């Protein structure tokens, strides 16, 4: 499916808006959209929303052989998936150019900037190291995928805990959570991406939406960490133009300030969730439910539903009316049914059964005043006997 074409109306209008320093959603030029982070019950799983753009990240790990030129370092693999869920023009299956671009930018920002302590992921040098895999699934595309993805990756990495291992010479033992607590990753610094789009008239905006991305003429993504250091940089002209002047120096200061604040927020969110897990005995606490607002018109929150079910009965197919009478008739029904089913058996069993059932009806009458569960108990015993 092709993308809905951009109309001249939209192009003109967005350009005019930016010229007048207003934006369609009422933000200022260098104002980002609100960020929300929700963690899942597994370690290293989080859902991030940046305005309407939404992404889910999950960190997973397994044990591999290290690369020969780095025998004592673990590995990181970052995979970005742009499924048709995000926008209808994305294709499932093979990786698109856009997905590769985002993956590469994230690799530059997180892997090449050496923010994860890879040496601590080594178990046996040259033999076994932890290999981290980060999957990012974009579920709604409303512009600025890279920022949203980078926030998700950082939050997931900070949240992730790997199993502890002990190496006893030849063997290595991976401890489950019940034996030894899982260990968090060591991060040297905390980078995030901050994106900008420049328009024909020279104005630059932060955190573009989908429509702004389509109209803009040049994009700039800065990977910044909380120490105001630059970790990655990506600049690209989207259309041929010479109007873009030195954007980097104009916005880098603002980007650094924002990155510092954003990293602080992410840290707080992660710390809050991790601490609440440590306190509780079972660590299975999913916070995705919190993303569903209770008071919205399109949402529905329900509680545990307790149901009283009609008991299934083989005889129900034969006759409904009889069953409803009382328990006694059920037994008789059951007996009839079983008599048919196991007709090859000895007659003696059938006789015994009929005796049982008469006995049962007696006992039933006797214990009519008793509470229900007991009655049930007796009946079950009888049925077991007849078997």
């Amino acid at each position, binding site marked *: 499916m092709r993308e809905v074409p951009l109309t001249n109306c939209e192009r003109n209008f967005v350009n005019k808006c930016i010229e007048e320093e207003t934006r369609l959603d009422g933000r200022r030029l260098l104002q980002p959209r609100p960020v929300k982070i929700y963690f899942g019950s597994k370690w290293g799983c989080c859902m991030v929303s940046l305005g309407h753009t939404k992404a889910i990240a999950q960190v997973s790990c397994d044990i591999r052989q290290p690369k020969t030129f780095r025998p004592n370092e673990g590995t990181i693999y970052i995979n970005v998936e742009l499924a048709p869920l995000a926008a209808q023009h994305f294709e499932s299956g093979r990786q698109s150019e856009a997905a590769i671009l985002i993956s590469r930018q994230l690799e530059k920002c997180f892997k090449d900037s050496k923010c994860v302590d890879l040496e601590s992921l080594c178990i046996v040098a040259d033999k076994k190291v932890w290999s981290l895999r980060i999957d990012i*699934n974009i579920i*709604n595309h409303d512009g600025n995928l890279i920022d949203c993805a980078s926030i998700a990756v950082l939050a997931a990495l900070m949240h992730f805990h790997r199993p502890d291992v002990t190496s006893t010479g030849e063997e290595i033992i991976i401890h489950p959570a019940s034996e030894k607590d899982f260990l968090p990753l060591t991060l040297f610094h905390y980078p995030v991406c901050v994106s900008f789009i420049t328009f024909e008239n020279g104005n630059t905006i932060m955190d573009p939406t989908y429509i702004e991305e389509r109209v803009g003429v040049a994009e700039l993504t800065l990977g910044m960490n909380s120490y105001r250091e630059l970790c990655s940089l990506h600049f690209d002209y989207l259309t041929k133009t010479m109007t873009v002047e030195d954007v980097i120096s104009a916005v880098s200061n603002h980007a650094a300030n924002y990155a510092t604040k954003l990293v602080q927020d992410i840290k707080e969110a992660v710390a809050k969730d991790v601490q609440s897990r440590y306190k509780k005995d079972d660590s299975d606490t999913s916070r*995705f439910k919190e993303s569903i607002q209770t008071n919205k018109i399109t*949402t529905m929150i329900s509680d545990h539903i307790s*149901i009283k079910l009609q*008991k299934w009965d083989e005889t129900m197919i034969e006759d409904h009316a009889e069953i409803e009478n009382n328990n006694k008739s059920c037994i008789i029904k059951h007996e009839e049914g079983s008599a048919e089913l196991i007709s090859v058996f000895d007659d003696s069993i059938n006789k015994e059964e009929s005796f049982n059932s008469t006995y049962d009806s007696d006992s039933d009458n006797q214990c009519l005043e008793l509470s229900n569960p007991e009655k049930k108990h007796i009946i079950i015993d009888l049925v077991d006997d007849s078997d």
Partner: protein
Amino acid sequence: MVEEDTEIDCVLRPMNCEINLLSRSDGSTMFMQGDTTIVAGINGPMEVKSQKMAYDKLSIEVTYTPLTGPAKVDDRLIETYIRESCESAILVSLHPNTMICINLQEVQDSGGLLACAINASCLALINSGLSMKFTIAAVSCMIEKETGKIIMDPDNTQLKNAKAEFTYAFDSINKDIVCCHSVGRFSQSEFLASVDKCKQVSQFIFDFYREITKKYANTV
């Protein structure tokens, strides 16, 4: 064997959902059964590639994306189940030469993933306004190893001592089975008993669909 009391209790995990969650999909939902969470989005009816075009009916494409790694065989299986059950529910002859995409994203799996995925896609279909013959509701249940008891809507910890696990989907008119998936060993009577129980439970999911529709229908 058969117990003679007429009523038993069962507890369903809480169902939560938000519909119309994604701005870029024609119909979307985030559906939770307990902690099991699926995000579903529908796109279409839209243009179809010529190799997938059916001249007399709507073709349905289902994409299921797991949380980690590329799609595996099990994920393809879920796609097939959803495609088959949705195809029976949608009035496919109304939109020939077009297709719809049902896109699902696993967010969290704590048991009953297939049931949750089917319910999420049905809710997304309801939200998309596509013409359907009926709605479908899926219910999962399991048989406990030691006691032989049937537990409805089990979660991951309960599933650890399961002898067999079932997922059934029912239509909303006659409560006929649309889809049936089982894992493990079980006897015929256990199977029939579980079908019957799930059939009764499915009514609560249909009620849930109606409640959520009721909530927004009067203002939208």
